[in-house]
């Protein structure tokens, strides 16, 4: 499982190594601007630009307190990567930016791998409990309602969200829920609802409940899928 990412990373690191080696001989356009070599490359249109940038670089470096060698190498090594913080640069009045505020990049939080592939003991989807919740929810909402085409659209959507919320409270964490509600007019027609799933039967399950009165019927199903 963990091997694939490392295989894919390996070629990319090799590529950057090749790029750096080529930078000295056939320079990448970016490498020209950030290159630490004082000699200009043998490219015609770039020659006019290179000395100007080098002179600007020297003026910027003179205002920095840190050693210029280390700063140059860090910029050259990661042309597309994160830049060093611009905090110390703003202290010096000689450096001017276009006026846009520069913020520190927000550090991304990387969650650690829990290495858990199955739900804990006793923390599985309890089908009986969820079924009781569904029955209670359906009876509570539809107890005294009559079918009407206009209001049933909104009713069924709110019922689906309500039942999903109620089921979420009784279902253990790390479970994804799919709540499906069918609501129809009661007119002596025949109907069948079936479902089948491709999942892990040890950790995933479902619960369903139905309700009917004189004017309408409803079928609610909640499928719980364990999220590894």
């Amino acid at each position, binding site marked *: 499982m963990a091997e694939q990412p490392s295989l894919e990373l390996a070629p990319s690191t090799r590529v950057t190594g090749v790029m750096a080696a080529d930078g000295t001989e056939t320079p990448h356009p970016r490498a020209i601007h950030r290159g630490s070599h004082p000699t200009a490359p043998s490219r015609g249109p770039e020659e006019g630009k290179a000395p100007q940038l080098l002179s600007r670089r020297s003026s910027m470096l003179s205002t920095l307190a840190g050693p210029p060698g280390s700063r140059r190498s860090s910029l050259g090594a990661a042309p597309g990567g994160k830049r060093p913080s611009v905090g110390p640069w703003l202290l010096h009045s000689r450096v001017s930016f276009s006026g846009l505020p520069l913020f520190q990049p927000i550090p991304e939080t990387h969650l650690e791998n829990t290495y858990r592939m199955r739900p804990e003991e006793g923390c599985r989807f309890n089908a009986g409990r969820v079924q009781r919740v569904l029955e209670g929810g359906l009876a509570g909402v539809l107890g005294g309602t009559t079918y009407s085409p206009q209001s049933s659209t909104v009713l069924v959507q709110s019922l689906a969200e309500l039942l*999903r919320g109620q089921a979420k409270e009784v279902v253990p964490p790390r479970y994804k829920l799919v709540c499906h509600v069918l609501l129809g007019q009661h007119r002596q027609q025949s109907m069948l609802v079936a479902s089948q799933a491709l999942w892990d039967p040890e950790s995933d399950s479902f619960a369903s409940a139905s309700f009917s009165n004189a004017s309408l019927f409803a079928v609610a199903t909640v499928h719980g899928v364990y999220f590894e």
Partner: protein
Amino acid sequence: FVFCCCNSSYLKILDCCSKTCIESVLGKADYNHNKVNQWTAAIVEQSLTHLVKLGKTYKYIVTCAVMQRSGAGLHTASSCFWDTTTDGTCTVRWENRTMNCIVNVFAVAIIL
């Protein structure tokens, strides 16, 4: 890699899978109370087989509702608690002279 289920082309594939399954099972048949059990089972099973052949790392839930056409109204809704960037759903409505059929496919991603 996680295949993004919000990709519309993948949802279209799910759509086509379900439609072909319904057509092959129900086709031109009229509603028959004795056969509706095996019809729904066949639709759901064929849909799942087609979805497995796509070869993506997803868990699938397929629901099928077949109703006799008698002028009664029918509404269906679903609410899901999942990762919206990787999981998705597809609904297919089919009808003929004597019955309505609604097939829902829910695809839940497995992170490897």
